[in-house]
């Protein structure tokens, strides 16, 4: 691990000012915020990340969960994942979020990992994590070893010829279906970004994963109030029953009235280069009865643009069945 300086800012303003001196807020950032450290320290040990300055956010008191005045929820950037998953308001109003978080990692890691850190969780593509291999995300222009290599776990949606790395987060998939808003404090003041616009597709610049610029500090995220009659659910399929990343997952937020789906929000995990919202599936579901044929049509629509690689073709059907089953479970006895 390369050596670094540890900075302990007293407030948000100092944190932003320190980080604003970075050349980039993306891959290879020379200045990094640190809170839980579960992704960053792992990558620093692998020399995939080599920041010269770490800015400790743990003293900034960004660790509150509060009901918003509009009936939604405000979640601080450094709220630990376990805190969020077990919070009574999350259990009651946003079960999809609780289930998604609890399906990921382990108790120890969830006790450390934070909301903003999870938003910024890095891919588990093994070529990204191995500095001996080419990887356009880690080292732009070096090539993608995954496209011709071991790609069973990698993405089938949103890929480019430069990168097929999957966004590994479960929490992000739930937040996408819940239409979360990300609140950022930067050098020019505060701004908000809808989660759908926060993560970028790899395109020609897979090293750029989010819209964050140097100095940008995620302070909190907000969730809109749950619509009445809405149910939500997260279903995750993986190689083993616990402590494993998704091969395919589905977050569904469904409002059901008089035998029909009146509103649908669908996001997929384990298959996309970013948390994958599917407006195509939502269109197929809206106004339709909650029956298998409709679910299957939605699933077909969600995966229409899937581009499988040499080893992950199975994910296309797996993701479809995952979505169908999630929709079935969430509308049962509605």
């Amino acid at each position, binding site marked *: *691990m*390369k*050596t*670094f*300086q*540890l900075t302990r800012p007293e407030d948000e303003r100092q944190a932003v000012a320190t980080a604003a001196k970075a050349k980039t807020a993306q891959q290879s950032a020379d200045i990094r915020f*640190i809170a*839980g*450290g*579960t992704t960053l*320290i*792992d990558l620093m*040990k*692998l*020399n995939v990340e080599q920041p010269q300055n*770490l800015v*400790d956010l*743990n003293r900034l008191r960004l660790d509150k969960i509060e009901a918003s005045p509009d009936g939604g929820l405000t979640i601080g950037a450094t709220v630990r994942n*376990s805190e969020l998953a*077990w919070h009574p308001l999350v259990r009651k109003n946003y079960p999809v979020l609780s289930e998604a978080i609890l399906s990921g*990692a*382990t*108790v*120890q*890691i969830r*006790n*450390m990992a934070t909301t903003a850190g999870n938003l910024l969780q890095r891919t588990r593509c093994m070529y990204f994590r191995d*500095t*001996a291999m080419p990887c356009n995300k880690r080292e732009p222009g070096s090539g993608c070893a995954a496209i011709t290599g071991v790609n069973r776990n990698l993405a089938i949606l949103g890929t480019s010829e430069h990168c097929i790395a999957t966004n590994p987060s479960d929490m992000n998939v739930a937040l996408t279906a819940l239409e979360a808003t990300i609140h950022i404090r930067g050098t020019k003041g505060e701004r908000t970004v809808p989660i759908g616009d926060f993560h970028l597709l790899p395109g020609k610049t897979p090293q750029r994963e989010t819209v964050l610029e140097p100095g940008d500090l995620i302070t909190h995220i907000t969730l809109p109030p749950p619509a009445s009659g809405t149910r939500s659910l997260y279903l995750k399929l993986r190689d083993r*029953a*616990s*402590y494993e990343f998704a091969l395919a997952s589905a977050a569904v937020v469904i409002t059901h009235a008089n035998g029909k789906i009146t509103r649908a929000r669908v996001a997929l995990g384990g298959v996309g280069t970013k948390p994958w919202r599917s407006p195509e599936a939502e269109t197929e579901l809206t106004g339709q009865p909650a029956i298998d044929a409709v679910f299957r049509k939605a699933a077909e629509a969600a995966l229409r643009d899937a581009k499988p690689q040499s080893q992950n073709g199975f994910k296309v059907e797996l993701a479809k069945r995952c979505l169908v089953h999630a929709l079935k479970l969430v509308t049962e006895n509605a």
Partner: protein
Amino acid sequence: MSDRSEREKNPEAESPSAFGRSTRRTFLSRLGMAGLMASAGPITVGAQSSGGTQPESATASNDAVPVALRVNGKKYDLRIDPRTTLLDCLREHLHLTGSKKGCDHGQCGACTVHINGRRQLSCLSFAALHEGDEITTIEGIGQPEQMHPMQAAFVEYDAYQCGYCTCGQIMSAVALLKEPCGPDDAEVKEFMSGNICRCGAYQNIVAAIQKVRRGAKAG
């Protein structure tokens, strides 16, 4: 496993003098680099000068930071390299060698400690991030003459073979007692999935934990 047992016998064996905090991976990649850059140069102490690679060792460097830690109720004032993980700090600076280094990447749970009452992975955190935290290691849970009920249950149920993962297992199991874990074995297994046992003592580990949970309820 020889490097591991060596480390056990002598925590100072992994001193930064030879190769810094080398893992097999960094050792091999540095060996490769040095081979390329100084084809005949032997890898010796101070190899950075012969190979031209950046020194990565954590010798009493100028970058050391003051850190005040509270571990098992005792206060420690240290000056450490900021790269020191909490695990390395506990083992090598405070000589609390109960917490084990298995994978050093947050995948095995052998390094589990309690921070402010919650179980966390000491290998995935820097010691310098824990000023003001209340840290508890296995040494603070119980001692041979006064074992925690969970330690006694692990003995009673033979919940280990080689014992390397055991301290981490017990730290997780003790924390589990206060977590929202359902009553069934399946739920215990889910809550314990962050602690790998390569000997495969899982059945006995679950039995030991359930024994303590039933006892706690009865009491």
